[in-house]
């Protein structure tokens, strides 16, 4: 069985390290917030201007002045800090955030990411995605391996307009995990296969070229 949303998020949570500052995108990446391993300290950044995101508030304790980048009400924590959007993106662009986990529409084998627009359709805007992929030290993308028509979203080259060029370090799909050498020329390497999924199935459903990591067959 391919991984479901929670299992993909759990695999992404495996990329967290003690002491990391982390920015989570909307969708499956948000689920990672509840999967921080016991005993590990991870500080979550909200790009609208908060470091140290707390849990959602209890009913009756909502504060309209305290929201995350997805416009949901949240809480702060002891040790949290508030700042302007300029300072927030200084943290992001300046390489101070260790890890960002984002959703994607397409990823290429050299680490290009497309996740903000489809030509001919209404564009919502890129929000902070372009800054995150340009500035955060390590970028993990979590997305379904194929689109609704069954076409591979992991490609030799992206067909959609890019969010960033050569920015993705790791791709986690419902079928497996790929490491991408975005700064070098080693391309993509399949590191893990979801339980019950075969290498043949991944090969059949992947348009990108990839090598096999140790022990993958």
């Amino acid at each position, binding site marked *: 069985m391919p991984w479901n949303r929670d299992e993909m998020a759990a695999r992404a949570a495996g990329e967290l390290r003690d002491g990391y500052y982390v920015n989570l995108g909307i969708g499956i990446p948000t689920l990672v917030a509840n999967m921080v391993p016991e005993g590990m300290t991870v500080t979550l950044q909200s790009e609208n201007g908060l470091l140290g995101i707390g849990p*959602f508030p209890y009913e009756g304790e909502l504060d309209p002045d305290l929201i995350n980048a*997805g*416009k949901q009400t949240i809480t702060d924590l002891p040790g949290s800090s508030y700042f302007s*959007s300029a300072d927030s*993106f200084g943290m992001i662009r300046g390489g101070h955030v260790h890890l960002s986990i984002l959703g994607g529409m397409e990823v290429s084998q050299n680490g290009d990411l497309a996740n903000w627009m489809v030509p001919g359709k209404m564009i919502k805007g890129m929000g902070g995605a*372009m800054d995150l992929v340009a500035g955060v030290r390590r970028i993990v993308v979590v997305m379904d391996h194929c689109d609704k028509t069954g076409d591979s979203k992991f490609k030799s080259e992206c067909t959609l*307009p890019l969010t960033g060029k050569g920015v993705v370090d790791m791709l986690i799909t419902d079928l497996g995990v790929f490491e991408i050498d975005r700064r070098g020329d080693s391309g993509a390497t399949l590191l893990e296969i979801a339980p019950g999924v075969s290498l043949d199935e991944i090969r059949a459903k992947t348009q990108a070229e990839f090598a096999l990591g140790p022990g993958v067959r």
Partner: protein
Amino acid sequence: MSSKIFNSAAEALAGQLSDGMVVAAGGFGLCGVPVDLIMALRDSNAKDLTVIGNNVGCDDHGMWHVLANGQIKKVILSFAGDNKILAQAFMSNEIDIEFNPQGTLAERLRAGGAGIPAFFTRTGYGTIIAEGKETRQFPNPDGTLDWFVMESGLTADISLVKAWKADTEGNLVYRKTARNFNPMIASAGRLTIAEVEEIVPVGSLDPDSVHTPGIFVDRIVASTMREKHIERPTTRPRATKETV
């Protein structure tokens, strides 16, 4: 003696607006939006405006009313979701929409307010955002080279911001994530008007705690907004026997 305090948003804007002006407004979603000032902008009927902001309104809220009144010809923003008028205008090309990466927009306003006409950022290199813009290589701290895109500073004829507290000098304190774009937009306005929840006497704000120094604020009005709106109210269940 001169005073920065005005009795209403309409009085603070009176005689200051003209057609074709550039107006910047603070806020992220419905959070930290100068609602009274935006409604006064709507009531002014000033036309052909260029509006700068992260969102430029959400359905039935904020700058949406100015859009709905047909006063805006161009928006410079980062996110146009949750706004049916912008969605429609985008498909029909009725309004010029300039998309900016959120951090680039924040920095363009910060730079504009700080007298910096342009800067280089890694954000957007290799994407359509970089098309037509100068690109240049600069070294990283480790000596490797990366490509950067030149972006321009932004200023506004009038900046509208929302703060929690102001003293009568215009020193501003924001509250929680309602700060967002407000500090940079305050600095980027040739005329900056702050709408605040509370106006306090000079001397009652700790100078070390001021977020926006009063030099950036020309006019102050007390907000009449009684209820702040929430776009996506989200809660967690209480544990059954938890004592709070």
